[in-house]
């Protein structure tokens, strides 16, 4: 259990590192969110140990480095993580490629809509322009890539 927590923390740190060092250099940080992707992957792999605590720490670190009010992105990550977990546990016990793609699309839409509404309320930078479509598309592409890479492991039970 503890090992799993530390592993999650390391993954979170790597995600944060990629977000703020590599992606921000290319200007891609606006369109892509590694932390959300990490949470989504944990959900589809059913790795629920310390998932909320890791999400909480990751969210706080994200808020800290991105100079937005501390706790704002944390709330969004936690909310999305909870909703996704509920869907996965109650409606998608066994995954197929199609259901996974559906879950991926629903979750990215949920995440970006919740995020942008919340940011609009906070007057940070909520927007519903073309960039939200790019965000959803890129995240889904990354998920499809991950699924194709780990197809055997993911659908081993089916």
């Amino acid at each position, binding site marked *: 259990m503890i090992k799993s927590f530390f592993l999650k923390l390391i993954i979170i740190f790597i995600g944060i590192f990629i977000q703020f*060092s590599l992606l921000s*250099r290319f200007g891609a940080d606006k369109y892509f969110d590694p932390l959300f992707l990490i949470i989504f992957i944990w959900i589809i792999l059913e790795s629920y140990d310390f998932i909320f605590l890791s999400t909480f720490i990751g969210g*706080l670190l994200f808020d800290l480095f*991105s*100079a937005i*009010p501390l*706790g704002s992105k944390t709330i969004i990550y*936690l909310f999305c993580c909870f909703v996704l977990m509920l869907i996965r546990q109650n409606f998608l016990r066994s995954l197929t490629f199609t259901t996974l793609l559906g879950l991926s699309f629903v979750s990215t839409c949920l995440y970006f809509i919740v995020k942008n509404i919340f*940011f609009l309320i906070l007057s*940070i930078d909520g927007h519903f322009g073309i960039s939200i479509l790019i965000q959803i598309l890129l995240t889904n592409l990354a998920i499809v890539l991950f699924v194709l890479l780990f197809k055997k492991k993911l659908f081993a039970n089916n």
Partner: protein
Amino acid sequence: MIQKISQKKNFFVFLSLIVISILIFALDQSAFLNSFKSFLFSGAKPILNLSDKNLYILTKPYEILINYQKDKNELTSLRQNKLDLTSMQIKINEIQRENDFLRKALGLKEQKKQDFFIAKVIGRSSEANQSIILDVGKEGGLTGGETVILPNNFLIGKITEVYESISQAKLLNSFDFSVSVRGEKTRTDALCSGAGESLEIEIINYQDQPEIGEIFITSGIDGYSPGLIVGQLEKITTKPSAVSRAGKLKPLINLNQFEQVLLLKK
């Protein structure tokens, strides 16, 4: 049964963490967490600096590649402008000399030269590109409210929060940033405020006729040094019923790409 217990436990953990997050958010809004944030930043500073240096080697070739065509076009136009600028520089030098002579003749004091700090950008708001974190803080002599500029006189923003070893600056395009500006050619006075990707201006005098493409600079009436470049007029919107006119400014610099800035002392 086990699943239900596990779900209940998860829900309880989720609820507790949401409450903690809301509490942190509220405390942060009322600046209660400044010392805590300062502590976290001091710890993260070496890591951020290290990652910045190392990753620059990785990303440099990519940046060169995507900027190649842009740089080529820019070079051509720069060559064209060079000659004009040289003759203009000679004229400016002449005017400067004449100005100095007249100042001496009239007994006017020399304008105070502003002191500045040099700061490195160690973090930026990835969500909105509206604020940056700088590696200079109270220890470096900052007090808050310093103007953030680039060496070529472009206004970037203003220091809003100062911690022990770092500080936070709101960028020009931030929604709660505003500065008084003036058209370089037509001397149109306006109030400029951030609007996310671009900048919005409200022209104070309805009679003023700014030109599209005109450069807007700080007017200096609200505490910012005068003459700092803010942006280029892209669009003017006039509503028949409105008392004032609005417009859109395009920042002439990419607010996402600079790595070092100058901080003008108050």
